[in-house]
């Protein structure tokens, strides 16, 4: 009971902080936080595959990117399309891509899974650059119209050139996504997912269909990556190959997840925050994103493989042990 009250008040405090955030900090930090939320959700969707199913993808940006392009194209070419259908179309593109890839993806595991995604990712990137008349080539699709947020005419507020409104909009959408992904891990199917990571053979022998289950996870993961990508495109009012489809976008999710710890649901959120802070700090000294990302990956894998949440868990364990010792 007492636990529950502490928990609820803690969450209330977090919620209040998030609501007040734009009032407390300047525009720069509001935008930074939106980026954080987008990549946190993207990394969570990535960790659905790596941490919860044991599948490492080097090309998760394909879903992030295609959804961004989908939304941007819809807004540019479909006259008067409202906001949510446009996002929906982008996410639909990501889901369709995932469904198309399923036959390959459910058959390969381990190294091959990673490499296949690297290849798909590179292919999408090259196509986005080459199919200029659709994607705008290197410039991408920019400055497309962004309709107001409105729900059944109940309310309506503008997003374009309004970072504070965008902050709240992103907070709600990405908050819901985070909750849904968390809920996913708590359902019976979420258990099967963890089982696949742990021992695929036994899952098969318990009577679950492994390929079908993997497909569901894969498509779900693509869905959430898609939402993140679509919001990201809206946020910048620009979707480009380098911003949304580059292999570095995929590596961002990997790095953030590693930093946070792949073993925990909330790991990628911590990881994204830490990664962003590190980037903010290092960007003053070097423009080389690759260098920063690369060094972080090397250090984390070699010296802190369980990441930040692993570190927290170790601390907690030590604290409990010392307390137990003091009690005798």
């Amino acid at each position, binding site marked *: 009971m007492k636990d529950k009250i502490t928990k609820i008040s803690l969450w209330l405090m977090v919620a209040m902080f998030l609501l007040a955030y734009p009032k407390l900090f300047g525009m720069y930090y509001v935008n930074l936080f939106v980026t954080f939320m987008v990549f946190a959700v993207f990394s969570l969707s990535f960790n659905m595959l790596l941490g919860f199913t044991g599948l490492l993808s080097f090309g998760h940006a394909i879903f992030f990117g295609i959804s961004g392009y989908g939304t941007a194209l819809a807004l540019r070419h479909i006259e008067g399309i409202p906001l949510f259908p446009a996002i929906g179309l982008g996410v639909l593109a990501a889901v369709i891509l995932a469904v198309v890839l399923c036959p390959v993806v459910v058959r390969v595991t381990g190294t091959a899974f990673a490499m296949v995604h690297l290849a798909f990712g590179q292919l999408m990137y090259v196509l986005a650059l080459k199919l200029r008349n659709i994607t705008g080539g290197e410039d991408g699709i920019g400055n497309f119209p962004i309709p107001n947020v409105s729900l059944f005419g109940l309310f309506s507020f503008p997003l374009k050139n309004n970072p504070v409104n965008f902050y709240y909009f992103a907070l709600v959408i990405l908050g819901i996504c985070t909750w849904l992904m968390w*809920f*996913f891990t*708590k*359902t*019976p*199917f*979420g*258990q*099967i997912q*963890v*089982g696949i*990571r*742990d*021992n695929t*053979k*036994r*899952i*098969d*022998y*318990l*009577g*679950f*269909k*492994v390929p079908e*289950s993997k497909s*569901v996870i894969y498509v779900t993961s693509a869905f959430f990556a898609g939402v993140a990508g679509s919001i990201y495109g809206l946020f910048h009012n620009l979707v480009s190959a380098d911003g949304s489809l580059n292999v570095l976008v995929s590596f961002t999710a990997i790095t953030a997840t590693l930093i946070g710890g792949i073993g925990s649901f909330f790991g990628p959120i911590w990881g994204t925050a830490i990664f962003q802070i590190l980037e903010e700090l290092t960007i003053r000294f070097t423009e080389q994103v690759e260098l920063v990302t690369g060094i972080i990956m090397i250090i984390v894998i070699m010296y802190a493989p369980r990441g930040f949440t692993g570190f927290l868990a170790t601390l907690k364990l030590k604290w409990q042990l010392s307390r137990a010792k003091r009690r005798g």
Partner: protein
Amino acid sequence: MYILETKDLNHDFSGLKVLFGVNLQVKHGERHAIIGPNGAGKTTLFNCITGTYKPSSGKVLFKGMDITGRTPHELTRMGIGRSFQITTIFMNLTVFQNVRLAVLSKRGIRFNLFRFVDKMKDITEETEEILRRVNLIEERDFPASALSYGKTRALEVALAFATDPELVLLDEFTAGMSRDETHAAVELVRKLTEGKTAVLIEHDMDVVFSLADRITVLHYGRIIASGTPEEVRSNQDVKDAYLGDLEV
């Protein structure tokens, strides 16, 4: 009528022949032991029956139905359970979560994305009931990797039974156990197989003779004898080939 039958089952691994025309017959409700020296092809036979491998030729019949080449999950859903010689459990999940997965499968809950699994009372109760039966309730919240060897094997066996199969195949469930552990495991299997049909691969002759209603002897991929323990014990071929070595 046999619950499980193989007809002229052959299997080879890219040229290496391991099974030669095996005709296994398992009766309804019996405990049937398969014995034979190391490398005789016992595990391969199980693998061909339960869908790990598709046999090179021959047929597998379950309750008269041809199940050759079916996948493991199909066979589990038809009522066949299996434990492995090499422990195959979810090492990073708790004992409870291990068994709960089996219970979920048995209830046909596979793509449920709409409920908290922890709040499904009936599932929790049934899982705990099984844990009590297999004496793992004390270890309910241990990660499987933290169990003692004997308990690990008990969990392996529990997973084979937790989907409530009609037919279970147990591959050396006592392998590597101490005397006490073996004794406990034998009693457990005796209890769990009540009202079911079981096929046991087993090296320990004490275990075989205390559990088995019938025995099949596999020798270099061929069945050389099959019958009641007495028949097998007095079979000259078996004595020559196998039991003689073990001084039974």
